[in-house]
């Protein structure tokens, strides 16, 4: 790359300029000195069609890069390249799974949709639960970051899913976590397990979200690639549902929450780094910059105030829509908001409050700094919106507005660095029809049954076996984990560990006065359970996914709740391996067919691929979450036996 942007640290004093400690409260930003090179503007891109661009390093294939040039009618600018590459990544575009995920839609009947207010495609599915209430819920993965930095990876995973739920206009009321680790006695587990559990705890507890359930499973296939799935449930009045969209020309775009820093932009640094290797002037600063860790540090306190402020602006009717910033940061938020709206959008990056002195447009757009949200606010409400932010001591800045016409136009230092049709970024990414093949080894795997295992033949051996089993990591008490999670906070947890499903009372969770619920009328609640046995799924992905669904369904039923909707988090290995694609497509079909059979819809989900270590894929792990409704939480079934004398134990089913 030959056209560094001014933010790109080729300035002789780069090391000094890297002084990016965090001057909170220092609102005005120092204009970075213009470096020797020009900004890679749209105009410049038009004039330099042959400039080489590091698209392969950014994960784009040759034909994808060609497609971007075709869409734009020119080469993309560095900032556009950053946007497309991240939005067209597997994680954001679902390019490998999309063709299979369609099956969920195809199998969802009108009857199943009856209670669905929002489904697949929104930030999170929303289900009407009666009495004027609705519930939104979703599971998301944060697997790879949690291996690199277990505490922060897990913490920011919780933070991300909570913002997803918040963006729907819902108050987050509970979290759950589904964890998969390598063998409990593997050396690296001592780093990974405590760090991840403490991270889930540290973030969720600080937000005041009770943890009402989850899973902990150990298996060698997760060594080197632990799974950290986090779920969040939110409650809203059905009339108050919001979807994230930017409509109405003239409406203002407000970025609020934490400042934007150099977090999680490791990949994008290739846009700047090539020119500087060996640059004697750049010194340590340049080195530090080029080695940016792709780690983000969570600030749960910032998220807690962000939640309260966001609910306050929703309640006051000040916004058109709000989008959370997660992976892909502003690239994602701006393109998705604009794509979902009725016009275009203009964004001025100079207005974005930064945490680093110098950031290129590509870096600002790609930053994954946590605890940020983007709101679309009618001009007459901007002052009131900013006042709410001030009350909660949250920084906020108007960074652009909704425009007529269909373009997303982004300027930096007064020059246009992005000018794209937003849908092409957000929704028109590549779709792959990857090869799918049942592996030849599958038959041998299935043939290798438990028949050959030794059976206990005496009472002593039976006793020994039982003791071994209940002491094994996969069956022993989960208290070491669950004791680190606050299950009481906010006082609406009706069931949590050791119950098979968690239950939350919802009237008070939404802040309705306790006085109204002191009356002895029925109090509505929601139940949720998540499950997955990945060893079953390995043997038969279709049936395995159905078993996960059935288990979560039963776990909801046994609390006394009526299962109502389904979400999932599909954790699989390398999609370039046809047998992994077979597992994925089988699991999706199994889950969808199972849901059709049970008559409850899949309202959303998440796909995490490339979960592999040194060529070994993880066991296929389609975590399934079932949400249920209970009319009166006082009538929930408490787990265990022996609460009352004379109880009768019955076995149902076969």
């Amino acid at each position, binding site marked *: 790359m030959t056209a560094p942007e001014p933010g790109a640290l080729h300035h002789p004093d780069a090391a000094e300029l890297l002084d990016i400690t965090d001057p909170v409260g220092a609102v005005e930003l120092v204009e970075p000195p213009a470096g020797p090179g020009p900004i890679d503007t749209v105009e410049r891109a038009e004039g330099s069609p042959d400039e080489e661009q590091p698209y392969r390093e950014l994960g784009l294939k040759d034909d994808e890069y060609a497609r971007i040039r075709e869409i734009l009618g020119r080469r993309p600018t560095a900032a556009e390249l950053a946007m497309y590459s991240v939005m067209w990544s597997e994680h954001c575009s679902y390019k490998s799974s999309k063709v299979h995920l369609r099956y969920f839609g195809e199998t969802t009947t009108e009857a199943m949709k009856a209670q669905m207010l929002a489904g697949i495609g929104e930030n999170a599915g929303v289900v009407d639960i009666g009495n004027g209430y609705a519930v939104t819920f979703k599971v998301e993965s944060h697997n790879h970051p949690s291996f690199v930095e277990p505490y922060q990876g897990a913490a920011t995973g919780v933070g991300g899913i909570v913002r997803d739920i918040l963006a729907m206009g819902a108050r987050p009321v509970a979290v759950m976590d589904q964890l998969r680790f390598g063998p409990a006695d593997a050396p690296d587990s001592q780093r990974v397990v405590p760090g991840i559990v403490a991270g889930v705890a540290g973030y969720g*507890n600080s937000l005041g979200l009770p943890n009402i359930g989850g899973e902990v499973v150990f298996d060698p296939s997760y060594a080197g690639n632990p799974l950290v799935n986090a779920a969040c449930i939110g409650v809203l009045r059905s009339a108050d549902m919001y979807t994230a969209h930017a409509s109405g020309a003239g409406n203002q775009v407000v970025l609020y929450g934490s400042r934007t820093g150099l977090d999680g932009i490791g990949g994008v640094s290739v846009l700047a780094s090539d020119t500087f290797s060996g640059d004697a002037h750049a010194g340590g600063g340049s080195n530090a910059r080029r080695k940016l860790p792709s780690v983000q540090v969570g600030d749960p306190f910032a998220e807690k105030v962000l939640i309260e402020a966001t609910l306050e602006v929703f309640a006051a009717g000040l916004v058109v829509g709000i989008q959370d910033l997660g992976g892909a940061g502003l690239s994602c938020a701006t393109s998705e908001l604009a794509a979902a709206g009725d016009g275009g959008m203009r964004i001025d990056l100079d207005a974005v409050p930064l945490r680093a002195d110098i950031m290129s447009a590509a870096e600002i757009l790609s930053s994954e700094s946590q605890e940020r949200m983007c709101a679309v606010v009618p001009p007459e409400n901007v002052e009131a919106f900013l006042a709410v932010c001030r009350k909660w001591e949250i920084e906020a800045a108007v960074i652009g507005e909704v425009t007529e016409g269909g373009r997303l136009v982004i300027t930096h230092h007064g020059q246009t660095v992005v000018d794209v049709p937003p849908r092409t970024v957000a929704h028109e990414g590549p779709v792959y029809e990857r090869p799918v093949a049942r592996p030849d080894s599958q038959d041998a795997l299935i043939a290798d049954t438990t028949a050959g295992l030794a059976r206990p033949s005496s009472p002593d051996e039976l006793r020994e076996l039982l003791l071994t089993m209940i002491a094994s990591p996969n069956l022993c008490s989960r208290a070491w984990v669950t004791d680190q999670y606050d299950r009481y906070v*906010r006082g609406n947890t009706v069931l949590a560990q050791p119950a098979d499903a968690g239950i939350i009372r919802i009237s008070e969770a939404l802040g309705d006065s306790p*006085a109204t619920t002191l009356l002895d009328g029925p109090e509505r609640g929601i139940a949720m359970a998540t499950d997955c046995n990945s060893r079953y799924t390995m043997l038969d992905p279709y049936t395995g996914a159905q078993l996960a669904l059935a288990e979560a369904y039963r776990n909801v039923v046994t609390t006394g709740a009526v299962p109502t909707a389904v979400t999932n988090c599909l954790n699989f290995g390398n999609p370039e391996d046809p047998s992994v694609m077979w597992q994925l497509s089988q699991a999706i079909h199994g889950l969808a067919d199972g849901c059709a059979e049970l008559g409850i819809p899949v309202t959303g989900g998440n796909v995490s691929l490339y979960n592999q270590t040194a060529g070994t894929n993880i066991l296929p792990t389609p975590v399934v979450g079932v949400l249920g409704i209970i009319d009166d939480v006082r009538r929930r079934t408490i787990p265990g036996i022996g609460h009352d004398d004379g109880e009768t134990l019955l076995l149902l089913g076969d």
Partner: protein
Amino acid sequence: MTRFGVITFPGTLDDIDAARAVEYAGATPVPLWHADADLKDVDAVVVPGGFSYGDYLRAGAIAAQAPVLRSVVDRARAGMPVLGICNGFQVLCEAGLLPGALLRNAGLRFLCRDQWLRVENTTSTWTTRYEPGAEILVPMKNAEGRFVADEAVLDELEGEGRVLFRYVGDGPTQGNPNGSLRDIAGICSADGRIAGLMPHPEHAIDPLTGPTDDGLGLVYSAVDALAQTVGATR
């Protein structure tokens, strides 16, 4: 009706629980905002749990500097009852209203569990509803709940009957959960009006959502005490 102020700092979590406990006990909760020095004519104040200002630096340290707390300190010194729960206890210690400090749990982890406590003093403003020696079961959940003070202070607290609650029961799931000196879970001021404890009585007001309703006794006790003094002054 007796008015209990319930403070919300940025990062406070258990304020609605505290308010609910106040309502359950038949009194009126009054929200107080950290940045507002006005105590709105309340008769008592509850400083609830959570992670005020993220508990960054030290638990409770930043909240102890808030305008509302300056007012609480003044009124408390003049005799207003104050209860600090968990983070609220940490705040009261940081603000100098109660002696000692709360440090990282000896086990170095956040710990959430149902905890047995013995009520050691049933004459304070907040504990008259309990029988002497009563044992109560309430949730406990914190990462920095290890009570420490120097020996002289501990002796003074014991000597003056200012240890309100002590962790009891046998391990590993009961007993002292965090290494608190002398198993102390909660203490009070010399006049018994200012109290603080790490476990959460406000989460034990209804067996539907907590292990028991043992926690309501604290609010009822204060309501009783205030009924006398408020009745006398109004």
